[in-house]
């Protein structure tokens, strides 16, 4: 179907025949390149029998001629045009100046970017406060539908996965602690260990990590795509505030939903711990439930729920901030989603440390 490109050297003349196109030369490329190299320096080239010459083949020839016209060239006018196009191109294109990465400059730009993000988040926070003030004066503008959608999507739909993870973590901690406690003969302290660690610390942090990965990334991606497709601009032209209708319900919704998921996950994790303690230490479920209020002051529950509120707020704020920074290309979308999740988890751990320091005297049972 395709005339195979051929090259013959006949008494000092190089004769090319067949179809010299990218598709045709590709299968024979190494052979043709060898033959062209062998013909190097030939003065006379006959291309009159070439049925088709495209620019890929023209570049191949032009390079074989070392970027100069041969002394004698027999070629049709159309194909000469193709070669002239190639010949008119500069041999090398100007090189891009290579950006040198300087350590100090890199650190500085990193810091500037972090400050820029911080500033962006403060602006977003300020806008949120303004919106809340507006809602106080005009309660009818409250985006109830969007709010309930957020609570359903990031709260109700997260229940199964958080329950599964919570239950397994409860079982794991109970088993590991039971091994240690039994060797000390302090079996009964399993209630204290499980109660304090799960309600005060593990429950909220575990949920925060899960929700940051699940709902945080979804929020960033959603706002990002709404920016790509100009939906946000469309909202603005209809006189609907993007912060009031898109950002505020997400932040409020997750702030409301998080403590509820924390409560649920902590309960399931305790259940897992109770089951494991029953199997491993023969501690009855009833004993566990009876002793939980004594071993764990109720302040721990409040601290756990308080963490839930703050974590939910932080995750949603960071997710919305990065979502609004998405530029109209796919690379930026993926980069900002990654950043949102990583920043949210880091911020949650940071806030958790602050909580630990501030509440160090509260809710710790005195023996």
């Amino acid at each position, binding site marked *: 179907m395709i005339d195979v490109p051929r090259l013959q050297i006949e008494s000092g003349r190089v004769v090319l025949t067949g179809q010299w196109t*990218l*598709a045709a030369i590709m299968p024979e490329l190494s052979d043709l390149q060898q033959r062209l190299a062998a013909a190097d320096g030939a003065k006379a080239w006959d291309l009159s029998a070439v049925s*088709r010459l495209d*620019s890929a083949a023209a570049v191949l020839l032009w*390079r074989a001629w070392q970027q100069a016209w041969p002394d004698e060239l027999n070629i049709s006018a159309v194909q000469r045009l193709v070669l002239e196009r190639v010949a008119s*191109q500069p041999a090398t*294109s100007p090189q891009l100046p290579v950006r040198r990465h300087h350590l100090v400059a890199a650190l500085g730009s990193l810091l500037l970017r972090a400050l820029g993000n911080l500033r962006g988040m403060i602006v977003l926070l300020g806008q949120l406060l303004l919106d809340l003030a507006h809602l106080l004066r005009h309660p009818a503008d409250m985006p109830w539908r969007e709010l309930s959608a957020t609570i359903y999507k990031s709260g109700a739909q997260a229940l199964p996965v958080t329950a599964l993870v919570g239950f397994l973590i409860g079982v794991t901690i109970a088993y590991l602690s039971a091994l240690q406690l039994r060797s000390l003969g302090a079996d009964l302290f399993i209630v204290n260990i499980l109660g304090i660690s799960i309600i005060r610390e593990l429950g909220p942090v575990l949920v925060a990590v899960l929700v940051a990965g699940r709902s945080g990334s979804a929020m960033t991606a959603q706002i990002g795509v709404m920016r790509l497709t100009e939906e946000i601009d469309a909202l603005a032209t209809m006189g609907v505030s993007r912060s009031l209708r898109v950002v505020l319900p997400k932040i409020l919704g997750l702030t409301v939903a998080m403590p509820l998921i924390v409560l649920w996950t902590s309960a399931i994790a305790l259940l897992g711990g109770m089951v494991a303690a029953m199997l491993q230490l023969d501690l009855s479920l009833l004993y566990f439930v009876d002793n939980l209020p004594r071993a764990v002051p109720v302040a721990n529950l409040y601290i756990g729920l308080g963490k839930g509120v703050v974590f939910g707020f932080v995750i949603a704020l960071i997710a919305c901030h990065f979502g609004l920074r998405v530029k109209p290309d*796919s*690379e930026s979308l993926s980069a900002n989603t990654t950043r949102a999740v990583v920043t949210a988890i880091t911020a949650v751990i940071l806030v958790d440390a602050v909580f630990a320091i501030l509440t160090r005297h509260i809710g710790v049972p005195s023996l």
Partner: protein
Amino acid sequence: MSAAPIIELRGISTRFGTQFIHRDIDMRVEAGQVLGLVGGSGSGKTTLLRQMLGLLRPTAGSIRLFGLDPGEADLLIRQTLRRRLGVLFQHGALFSALSVFDNIAFPLRELRCLDEDWIRRLVDLKLDMVELTAEHGRLMPAELSGGMVKRVALARALALEPELLLLDEPTAGLDPERSQNFVNLVGVLQQALDLTVVMVTHDLHTLTSLATHIAVLADQRLVACGPRQEVMAVDHPFIRGFFAAKAGKLL
């Protein structure tokens, strides 16, 4: 070239759910033709184009590109087939993560047998063909205007030296002057590279200045297909309406 048609559609029917898009469409595109595919909104022009590309399968009927089935042939044949055609999507479909240069170089690099210097020369050549300079190669797609996106997409479509070029709404979203420039550009390239072109368009101006042949889709059928002058004279309510409405607007 060989006498076999570049594209041959036989008995194409398409159904989405219970709704028929096409019924029993037969069409041939010969080498060197510039075929304009017209029809009302929702008449399945783009669907037909996607079927020619093998991106969609028709419910019934057969499609032959260069005598091969774009959907059924094995991977290697399909690859060689795809390399013989270039596509210009309606919105350009440039890879937003790659610069203009890398976008055009992408199909060439995928061949895995050209060296970087060769690729660089070819990309510069294609940029030159669509009247852009090497400096434009460094820009990212997000930094381009609508007309430039079309040009870069055309350069990418031409990167593999295709014999067949498929254009989806080549001038949609361009102002009249740019659209005229783009049409001229496609015309010049079609002559110079000896391309067969199939284009979907709404624009009468594009149609009259480029197309040698016209195919009209209406009422789920191909109501006319042939040389431009003949098709424009066909007495069919859609064709009369289409050309009359557009002609009226031009005045």
